[in-house]
């Protein structure tokens, strides 16, 4: 039994020593890579595509800026009108107040 175990031990050592990996054949990796499915190539972007994109960006940006300016002007005009209306109202109210509440000149009902 002991001898049998020794035999197996020696055989296992022999197997381990003898069965190192063998080298793959020369050029094996190249042949594998040559068989891989090709990835679809992305179509190259034309040179003028970047220029057209930049021009479009500038046009859109300019149109937005102009619109923003117009909004600002309209807003200021509306604000001026509102202030004028307030001044007029204040003047009318002042005038009414003068006529209604003046001590000694016509009793209020």
């Amino acid at each position, binding site marked *: 039994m002991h001898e049998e175990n020794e*035999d*197996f031990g*020696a*055989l*296992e050592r*022999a*197997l*381990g*020593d*003898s*069965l*190192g*990996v*063998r*080298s*793959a*054949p020369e050029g*094996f*990796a190249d*042949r*594998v*890579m040559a*068989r*891989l*499915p090709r*990835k679809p190539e992305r179509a190259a972007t034309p040179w003028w595509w970047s220029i057209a994109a930049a021009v479009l960006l500038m046009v859109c940006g300019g149109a937005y800026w102009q619109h923003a300016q117009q909004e600002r002007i309209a807003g200021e005009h509306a604000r001026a009108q509102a202030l004028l209306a307030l001044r007029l109202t204040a003047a009318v109210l002042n005038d009414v107040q003068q006529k209604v509440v003046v001590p000694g000149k016509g009793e209020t009902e």
Partner: protein
Amino acid sequence: MEHAEFRQIVVEHQARVFSIAYRILADRGVAEEVAQDVFLALYGVVDGLASADHIAAWVRRVAVHRATDALRRRPRTLHAAGQLEDWMAQCSPEPAASAQTLSMERLLLDLPAMQRSLVLLRYQEDLTPDEIAATLGMPVATVKSYLQRALKHLRTRASETWKEYMRHA
């Protein structure tokens, strides 16, 4: 995965995969076909493998399965003297293949395909019986039983070769 990255994986594992296929099939040409097929299959799944260890386990398992399938489809025996000499001639071109290696490889061919596969995973890949069981999806007890049988068979068939090896060890 990018081709450049995959190529590195091929280079890392090509010797292992080819060795498993070659030592199961004993035919250099068929072994290379099988080994290439293993990597082509790997390319389809590699993005789903979590780590380098997973890749190694995957290629071992698939190499064993594909080589044993190929052997089953193309059974061959090397007991006829002419075939054995042809086999020895085709596997000797590598200067690094020692006489002991060639002897052991010849002995392996006496084993049934499953025992041969387990011996390769145990002694070429240095896996424990538990690791072999996990790699192939087999019970550990079955792996140990097959390995025991394989060693007994090899010892019986190899007595002369083994004694020669021990004399020079």
